[in-house]
């Protein structure tokens, strides 16, 4: 009856790759958010679109920065 070891939810070797991809996607979505902000005028601007783009961008950037911290050795 060997004790069951607990590891991390995601394999360790994936952390750098995962952080690069998540941050890349997050930055792309952030860029699209800013482009939308820059190109839209007061009249044809939709709050829902702004909020969703912002939320999606922050989710990707949030997880990407977490994996970046872990990959560089700061095990938070």
């Amino acid at each position, binding site marked *: 009856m060997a004790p069951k070891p607990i590891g991390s939810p995601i394999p360790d070797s994936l952390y750098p790759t995962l952080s690069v991809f998540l941050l890349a996607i997050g930055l792309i979505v952030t860029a699209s958010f800013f482009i939308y902000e820059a190109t839209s005028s007061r009249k044809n601007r939709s709050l829902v679109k702004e909020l969703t783009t912002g939320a999606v961008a922050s989710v990707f950037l949030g997880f990407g920065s977490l994996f970046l911290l872990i990959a560089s050795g700061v*095990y*938070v």
Partner: protein
Amino acid sequence: MEAPLRVRLALLLFIFVHLSLHTKSFSQELQIINAERRIDLTTHIVTVFLTLKVENLGASPASEVLLAFSPTEVEHLALVKAAATTGKRKKKTYVPLDVNSVELPDAPNGTKYFSIALVTPLSKGDTATIEVLYRLTHSLEPFPVEISQSESQLVYFRDSAILLSPYHVKQQTTFIKTPSTRVESFTMVEPTKRAGTELKYGPYDNRAPYSYLPILVHFENNNPFAVVEELEREVEISHWGSIQVTERYRLFHAGARHKGVFSRVEYQTRPGAVGASSFKHLLARLPPRVHSVYYRDEIGNISSSHLRSDFLKSELEIEPRFPLFGGWKATFVIGYGLPLQDFLFESPDGRRYLNFTFGCPLVETVVDKLVLKVVLPEGSKDPRAEVPFPVEQRLETKYSYLDVVGRTVVVLEKKNVVPEHNNPFQVYYSFNPIFMLAEPLMLLVFKKIILSKSEVAKDLS
């Protein structure tokens, strides 16, 4: 008037007989038929192997055997282990026994006792063989107290030729092993023999309980007297995949103090004759699969270290910035990371536990005060530590990366730690895996705030 007087006398006699029966309840029942003591003085920690053959003379079965130590010995006693042995030579089986410190009211001259609990009580007329191991720290006194760098280190060892015991000992012998053949002097208590590195005191027959014959052995011991005055070990658990261990050492050379100048030229040109009692290498045994090992002190990184790992263990050989002579100190920090799955497990009742080794990774060193801090991740509840020997426990809070409420720290403290204390211990705690999302959610919210600020800024423009 005579009858009540006679009744009173009878009552007094009755009480007196009862009292005399009760005071000798433990001492005279057991007898030690043969005691063999092997004292190993090769390192700076004194190791004593004691083999006792105990016979029960009394009528009632005996469930414990008492070991007596003098008050000075007990102060330096690091650990006592006992086992019952059956069979001979290659077919010996060892059954470990519990040893506890006990207080007895009528102890002569402040003797302290340890009680060994037998697995099966010893019935009348039966004999049992018990092997005891105990280690004494700081028991070798350097004499001369100060030496120059070209002299060898000589130390005093004080003990008794007769085993201090609350029982009658029929026959006993003591063997003392010194690290080299240079023994300046030793007390002669007939019959005493000396052959090479071994001194034999005995055999002595029929000694009364609590008999004590002090002896003094003055011999050469150039083994490294490495003592860590204070060691603080911090084990930080992160559920994202690693355990980070940071150890802060205050190392001290506890041998004869160095006097005079330290000539580096002499030290390097004549390595055998000069600085015989000094040491410059220290070996630390670390678990296998260790990564990111660093060795630094307040000045910066110390590059004189080697790490050799294989599948079973890793060995870190470190060299402080200067060789340590008597009375010299060195402080440094060693840190390393370990994979989480080697040490964190799930218990059957759903709680998680960390299985780690207590003690100091440096080989053959004494730690005067060891403080072990286990930092549990944020959101851990009900921490509980299970350690195989008595330690002082308390809880603290530590604020680290991305912490809101702080991390619970289980602090275990122990004094007088020897390498035999490198046993695994467990720290149990409950953790809801949903709390692992707390950290990315915090980063997420932070990013969202930044984006929404820019949105609001655009709105206002």
